[in-house]
């Protein structure tokens, strides 16, 4: 506390004051995300896949159900650039048009599982006690049933159309989100600001959705992203097993239908699989990037 040290900081910060202003969280998040090469690559890939899926049919207007050439025409042919399947349908058109069902089912199922999971986890974590015990019993029940098998049973029993498939995937995949949400709620509900809101007379519903949920959101956003990826894999698996909507072209369906000819026509099973792989890869890269941007301290790993 000498004069020398006292006067220096008094004059120094004045010109630097604008730099010391804290950046807005959104800006900081975007900057951190943009500095992450793999995440950026994933984002570009994802945008490209979305463009292909939604604009592709305009640029390449071949009906995926039309027979355009001999069965098993290899890639590079005159009528089908990526070859044809076992009845002579265009694989490229199948890939372009098959993405819609896969992406829509994946996204919708992820929304169902995340909403259901957050609701269950939030109630369990907020109320604790018997409600928590009961809800966790339900979660445990769903976790001892192999997800794909349960979804297979549900789709077999209720018929395979896009709605039952979406519902089945959503219903079997919420427990992981619920566990995560519960852990976050258990942690946050004991924090001072929640106690303060409670003392101020906030009702339970307000506490759950307005006070605690925003704080619990970052890890749940990441979980939601990952669950889009796993739902897409799920839908592909069901279609592969022949449980997809038979009237809707999808990537898994193409692989499943051509599975018996894989040694004669590798392109029929390889290329749609590449489409699924790249889509899920892009989503997990973006998810990782969001996670890292939300948790700067973990990024060093």
């Amino acid at each position, binding site marked *: 506390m000498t004069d020398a040290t006292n006067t220096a900081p008094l004059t120094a910060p004045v010109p630097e004051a604008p730099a010391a202003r804290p950046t807005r969280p959104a800006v900081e998040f975007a900057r951190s995300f943009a500095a992450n090469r793999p995440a950026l690559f994933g984002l570009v890939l994802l945008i490209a896949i979305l463009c292909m899926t939604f604009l592709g049919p305009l640029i390449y207007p071949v009906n995926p159900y039309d027979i355009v050439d001999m069965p098993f025409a290899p890639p590079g042919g005159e009528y089908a650039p990526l070859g044809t399947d076992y009845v002579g349908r265009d694989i490229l058109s199948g890939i372009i048009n098959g993405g819609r069902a896969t992406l829509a089912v994946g996204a919708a199922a992820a929304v169902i599982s995340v909403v259901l999971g957050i609701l269950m986890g939030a109630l369990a974590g907020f109320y604790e006690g018997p409600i928590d015990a009961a809800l966790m019993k339900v979660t445990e029940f769903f976790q001892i049933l192999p997800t794909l098998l349960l979804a297979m049973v549900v789709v077999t029993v209720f018929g395979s159309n896009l709605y039952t498939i979406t519902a089945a995937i959503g219903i079997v995949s919420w427990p992981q989100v619920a566990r995560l949400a519960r852990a976050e709620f258990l942690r946050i509900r004991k924090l001072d600001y929640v106690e303060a809101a409670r003392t101020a007379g906030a009702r339970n519903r307000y506490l759950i959705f307005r006070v605690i949920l925003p704080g619990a959101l970052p890890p749940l956003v990441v979980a939601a992203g990952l669950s889009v990826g796993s739902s897409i894999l799920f839908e592909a*698996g069901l279609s592969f097993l022949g449980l997809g909507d038979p009237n809707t072209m999808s990537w898994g369906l193409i692989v499943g239908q051509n599975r018996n000819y894989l040694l004669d026509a590798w392109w029929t099973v390889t290329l749609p699989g590449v489409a699924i792989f790249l889509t899920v890869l892009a989503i997990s890269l973006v998810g990782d990037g969001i996670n890292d941007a939300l948790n700067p301290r973990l990024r060093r790993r």
Partner: protein
Amino acid sequence: MRKLAPRLISAIGLLLAVLVLNFLLIHAAPGDPVQVIVGDMGGASPQLIAQMKAQYGLDKPLPVQLGLYLWQVLHGNFGYSVYFNMPVLDLILQRLPATIVLVLSSLILAVVIGTLLGIFSARRPRGILSHLVTLVSLFGFSAPVFWTGIMLTILFASVIPIFPVSGMFSVRDTGGFFAQTLDLLRHLVLPSVTLASIYIATYSRLARAAMLDVLGADYIRTARAKGLSERRVVFGHALRNGLIPIVTMVGLQFGQLLAGAVLVETVFNWPGLGRLAFDSILRRDYSTLLAILFFSAILVMVANALTDLAYRWIDPRIGGGRTRKATKTPAAPGSKSPGPAKG
């Protein structure tokens, strides 16, 4: 072992719940079974229909029907599979060993390879191996498992033909026990590598994070200061604690492993429960499908019990504290440092 009784009760309760779910699913299925039979017969009088309903107990109220169903299951009667022409229980017991062989071999493969990759990349966090782990785990998370299987089939059964394409044994009798085991192993390689590929990803990531944590601990510094060889430090001291999150994950993911087995068995024609599930879907064989669901639930619960035992063996301090760890570990990536970016 003192807590065995409540555990057993809870397990029985869960299995009962699975059976009730099964019953409700059959009940909710569109279509009246008696109408199906009558349709096959080419029509029947209302009296006969009523008589058949009475014979199958379908005229009774729902709870009574549920009771009848549970009573049958208790006596080992899961119904009769018309397509396979044998009782469902026999069918399942016949297919169970193949699935257990496949699932266990994949699990061992995934745990061993995943842990080793994790350990070596934790020793050099910026090394080539560390990047390899990232790549492998990205692939494992993103590739659909049935597609991985198909790619491996094309590669190792057609381009470089060293492994059989499908099945569990060769058609021709290969003779003695030793030759048969060898034949089984040859058939097992591709399916178990395929199934393991997903979990190698998970376990190598987990093992790396856990080992990075453990290798920074004080007791490891003490072990090094004592002058122990690096191998003793890593495999003798650090690994034991580094294994805990992996064991947690094995327990949590066993159901997923069975689900993956459905796809892998379908790709490789492996004669297990998963292939059976696929076949019974094609035939709308509900009773077989539901029995498979029930038996997989039993398998998952057995796996969870074994995971508990493994915990106690790895860390004697843990006595029934599994749920605490179980909720903690999978949440780790997101919740470890909650939202400082917001500040």
